[in-house]
């Protein structure tokens, strides 16, 4: 299995250097009076897995959604490989088709799967290729079939979303994102809506992707995933990045008191102890 992705890692300006693939500076996003994200800056290098953790409502989803411009940030800059956007200067921002195509350079997977309800599994994986990338349907179908096999769903091509379990739907959603050959994959609590026994099959697919060198930004409450897969962990609180480091640094020996308070809840309640297993 390989990530059929022309840009990560290998090609592109970001490869083989310390030049990050994705650079975010001073990102801000408010909804009316609510400052959801308040000046967040971080880098993601090609092939890196960055996990964002933090309490509910701290702005994790908003941060992800600002990256692929599902939300338009109020301020800050974002550079993806060769393309830099300055949100203070609306004239530099893509619009219309340009914006849509920029967005497709990210692949996003959502908590609620959000598969297209009127389409079968394979159609869900094909539609972006056919509509957005203008790939011939026969070729798109072959690629989609490969991708479904890759996420362990061989033979489920013609199932409708409602005929699939949550874990299967989420794996189709991952295949749908991969079908666009995105440069960066964004995961927003993709296992939170799943029954516990289905979480593993989705995490496994994500772990495979990480191993194959996909560039990923993952928001999750799965501390074991952060510990085992993350190259770097970011801790967010109240719209700000409070702490950043390797999984061991952030999760085992957090310096910030807010990180400590947050992690203590997991130490107490969880069957697995990220404080010891991850070291």
């Amino acid at each position, binding site marked *: 299995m390989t990530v059929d992705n022309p840009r990560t890692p290998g090609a592109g300006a970001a490869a083989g250097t310390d030049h990050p693939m994705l650079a975010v500076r001073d990102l801000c996003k408010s909804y009316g009076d609510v400052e959801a994200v308040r000046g967040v800056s971080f880098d993601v290098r090609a092939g890196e897995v960055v996990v964002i953790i933090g309490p509910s409502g701290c702005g994790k989803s908003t941060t992800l959604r600002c990256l692929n411009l*599902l939300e338009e940030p109020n301020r800050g800059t974002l550079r993806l490989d060769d393309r830099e956007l300055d949100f203070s200067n609306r004239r530099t921002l893509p619009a219309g088709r340009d914006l849509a195509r920029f967005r497709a350079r990210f692949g996003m997977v959502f908590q609620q799967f959000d598969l297209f309800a009127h389409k079968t599994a394979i159609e869900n994986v094909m539609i972006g290729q056919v509509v*957005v990338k203008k790939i011939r349907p026969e070729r798109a179908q072959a690629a989609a079939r490969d991708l479904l096999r890759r996420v362990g769903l061989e033979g489920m091509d013609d199932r409708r979303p409602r005929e699939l379990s949550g874990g299967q739907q989420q794996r189709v959603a991952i295949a749908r994102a991969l079908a666009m050959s995105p440069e960066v994959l964004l995961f927003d609590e993709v296992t939170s809506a799943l029954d516990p026994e289905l979480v593993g099959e989705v995490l496994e697919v994500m772990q495979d992707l990480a191993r194959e060198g996909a560039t990923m930004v993952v928001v999750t409450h799965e501390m074991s995933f952060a510990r085992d897969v993350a190259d770097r962990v970011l801790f967010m609180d109240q719209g700000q990045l409070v702490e950043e480091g390797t999984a061991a640094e952030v999760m085992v020996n957090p310096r910030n008191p807010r990180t400590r308070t947050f992690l203590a809840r997991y130490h107490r309640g969880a069957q697995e102890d990220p404080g010891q297993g991850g070291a």
Partner: protein
Amino acid sequence: MGYKWDFYMIFAGYEWWWLKGLGITVAYASATVGGGLLIGVVCGMGLLANRWWLSGPIHVYVETFRCTPVLVQIVWFYFALPILLNAVVPGGGLELPAWLAAGIGLTLYMGCFATEIFRGGIISIDKGQWQAARAIGMTYAEMMWHIVLPQAVRRMVPPFVNQSVIQFKNTALLYVVAVPDLMYTGYLVVADTYRPLEVYSAVAIAYFVILYPLTQWGKRLEARSDR
């Protein structure tokens, strides 16, 4: 029963009248439903665009037609609009034929409900579907065409069929402006034959025979869209 029914009398010699009346009713119903659908799509899209200068006038239109009786609308378009046009257009050269004026009223009436049905169908589609479509790089038009509309149309069909049935019945109101539809034809035949019981019963049955299958079909669609 002392009354002697005689249906032969109201049909013999009037076949052509009836056929023409039925044709006019069906034509008015189809044309005004079709026109209303078109208005509904355009105005519905306008409301969804979230531009005040678009949605403002559309709201005024929808509420005006929803909150006035359709009979008043037909009469207004037939009697009042020509006067207004003559006053506005210098020289008064603008003639609006009666059949057209009445038809415009009915079309706009259908259009205001179609607008609501269209908008309602679109916004009933889960926001997750929209964001998933945008996340894979679709433009607004691509998202609408490939993801939102195919799902929304299924939900729009049952209310639209219901509204079309109502619209079909409303064409009977055209008789007040002397458009020779099914109802007005009945009025004429009564004047000729003095047989109101047979005539108006026949008219009612004609509407029923056409509309009953339509409502049943609407019910079936509704049941299917629940699944």
